[in-house]
């Protein structure tokens, strides 16, 4: 997302002075909320004020995303696009403070007083909110045929107990970064299986072309679960059984997958032992300074890799779907925020209308161009303007197609802590089977 902040605004419908005013208003949550209300009034100056009074007022809470513009601008655009609904924006902390956003949302939703009417949520919270009865099931408004417009993985993540309780908004996922020059030198074809990747990485290391073959994230943190979900799914394994009532993380597929990660350090030696304490940024740094051949990371790395001030590998980096095991399919851990409606909202129709607008192709294109947030609708990746302005994002369609949700369970927070602990232990000790079986037993108790 940082590319958007740095990039000069090439085409912008908003005047510059207005943007500066808006930025200032976005400084704090209160500021933004007041700002949105104040701008709502100014937008309908004079004769409009009477009209504004007759509007249905709803509130919208979201983590604060911004790029060339902020979410406040988006809300304002909606308020100006019609004259029946007036949306008030409640700004939560930025997505980097995910725990605080989560707490903030829960505190509001648990009151069950209908505020906020519409909200955005991290994919892993959806099941919890649905199970608590805070999220309105959206099936009647978005029947199955409408959902085919979105990436299937995103729709799966928005579905709990066979009910659609969230509407896809934007996506991110894990992806496979590689050095074009090194791949060219050592075989010419981007590896599609983990074994090919390991062989190629070892060859490059041996030839002295790269200090590290493959970088991933093994820190005992949420990102470890993302890395694990990807590699386990790519071996046709899973963390939870399809019914979500038991864990299959102790099964052969998962054990083989985690064993592969363990072996990258001790056996194939394509990863430094340091990955066990690395999350995203520490693993990104050696890659952009030209020390590594392959890396698993999120989409934010690409703009940094292309920034000559921060990177030694400008124009040498490309992205592909992550490798898979023989007989498996590439999988990418799904991230991103999705939209939801408060089940206690008293203004359901207005909330649905705003929700529909937020997830519409037009708004998603605007999110892609102005916020750097990738659309959850595959069709937008064909958009000519997106291809011209964000060629990297446009190239990610194949990556997002394989996006896989993390375990969908209302107890996700407990499941992830148990998994983080066990997988970290498995990676450190090498006793993968024992640790993962212990994890499965523990998760069985949590989700049963």
């Amino acid at each position, binding site marked *: 997302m940082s590319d958007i902040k740095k990039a000069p605004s090439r085409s912008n419908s908003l005047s510059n002075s207005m943007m500066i005013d808006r930025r200032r208003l976005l400084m704090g949550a209160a500021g933004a909320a007041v700002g949105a209300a104040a701008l709502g009034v100014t937008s309908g100056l004079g004769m409009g004020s009477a009209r504004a009074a007759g509007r249905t007022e709803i509130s919208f809470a979201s983590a604060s995303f911004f790029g060339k513009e902020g979410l406040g601008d988006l809300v304002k655009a909606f308020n100006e696009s019609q004259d029946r609904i007036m949306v008030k924006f409640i700004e939560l902390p930025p997505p980097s403070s995910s725990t605080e956003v989560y707490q903030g949302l*829960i505190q509001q939703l648990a009151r069950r007083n209908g505020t906020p009417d519409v909200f955005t949520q991290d994919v892993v919270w959806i099941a919890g909110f649905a199970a608590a009865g805070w999220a309105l099931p959206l099936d009647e408004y978005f029947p199955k045929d409408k959902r085919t417009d979105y990436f299937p993985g995103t729709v799966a993540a928005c579905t709990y107990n066979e009910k659609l309780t969230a509407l896809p908004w934007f996506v991110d996922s894990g992806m496979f970064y590689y050095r074009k020059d090194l791949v060219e030198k050592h075989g010419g074809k981007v590896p599609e299986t983990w074994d090919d990747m390991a062989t190629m990485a070892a060859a490059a290391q041996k030839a002295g072309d790269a200090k590290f073959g493959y970088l991933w994230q093994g820190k005992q943190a949420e990102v470890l679960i993302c890395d694990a979900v990807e590699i386990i799914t790519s071996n046709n394994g899973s963390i939870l059984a399809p019914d979500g009532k038991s864990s299959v993380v102790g099964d052969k597929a998962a054990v083989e997958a985690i064993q592969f990660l363990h072996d990258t350090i001790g056996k194939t030696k394509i990863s430094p032992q340091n990955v066990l304490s690395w999350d995203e940024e520490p693993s990104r740094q050696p890659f952009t300074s030209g020390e590594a051949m392959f890396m698993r990371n999120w989409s934010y790395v690409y703009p940094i890799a292309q920034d000559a001030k921060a990177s030694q590998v400008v124009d040498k980096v490309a992205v592909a779907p992550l490798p898979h095991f023989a007989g498996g399919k590439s999988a990418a851990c799904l991230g991103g925020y999705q939209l939801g409606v408060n089940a206690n909202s008293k203004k359901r129709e207005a909330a649905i209308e705003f929700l529909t607008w937020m997830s519409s192709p037009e708004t998603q294109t605007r999110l892609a161009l102005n916020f750097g947030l990738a659309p959850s609708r595959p069709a937008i990746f064909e958009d000519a303007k997106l291809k011209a302005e964000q060629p990297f994002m446009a190239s990610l369609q194949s990556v997002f197609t394989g996006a896989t949700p993390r375990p969908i369970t209302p107890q996700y927070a407990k499941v992830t802590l148990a998994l983080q602990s066990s997988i970290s232990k498995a990676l450190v000790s090498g006793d993968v089977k024992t640790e993962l079986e212990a994890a499965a037993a523990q998760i069985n108790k949590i989700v049963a």
Partner: protein
Amino acid sequence: MAFTASAPATGQSSKARRALPRALWPWLLLLPAFLSLASVSFYPIVNGLYLSLTNRSLITQDNDFIGFANYVQLFNDPAFWNAWRHTIWFTFASTVLETLIGLGMALILCEAFSGRGVIRAAMLVPWAMPTVVTSKMFGWLFDGQHGVINFILLHLGLIDQNVNWYGSPDTALLTIILADVWKTTPFMALLLLTGLQTVPKSLIEAARMDGAKAWIIFWNIRLPLLLPTLLIAGLFRALDAFRVFDLVYVLTGGGPADSTETLSTLSYKVLFSTLQFGYGSAVSTAMFVTEGLIAVVFCLFLVRQIRKTT
């Protein structure tokens, strides 16, 4: 208490005040202090205790009284005992190291030498630094790839390959203890320095006259007289170290393989990531009890020491 002296003087004129029995006045005046203390100190503790007897969770919306079920679960929870052991070990190791090194620093700073004032002030810099900054700094110092520590040790020939300080369960907690020692030793040194300055100079001079060596003076005069300060400083430090959170949270997040999980990080995860307020409060209460035990042990020593000297 000062009130009883002044009350008759100011109170005589007012009938209402005279109407109140004298014995009630002190209590009435203590009431605001008691109320404010009760609201910020007693109430949260009691409420925490009560929460630990419920299954309250924001996510499942449960909120029932379940007796001691949380404590039974806690007792059988390997994650809790794992964190408990790490916390005790961290508290013990960091307190002992900080006391010993702090004592050494205090003894040096107690001597008169030029530039002592500047050194005393400079010594406090690590302690004044926000812990998150210290954490980041130690993160880079002990970085497994580019860390200065690895570079130095490698060039001195003490290690033959880079050590992955935070990525290995054998060294992660040790490195965190080191960071804490670096940061908090000055605080100990300062406390002990004030203690040393209360040791009467005449005693030391008298010992010198009798031909006592520096070591004898330290062992027989300074140390015994410093002991109460030492115990109080140790108590402060131990209770503070027991709550270690920021260093662990920033540097390792409890990993690898739970090898740096402490009670504070565990209760944070249970309380604020999984939002199980009931079980999380039980973890916090267990912390509270353990801290209480540590304080009692220190206080027993302290009381014995004070009895001995008076």
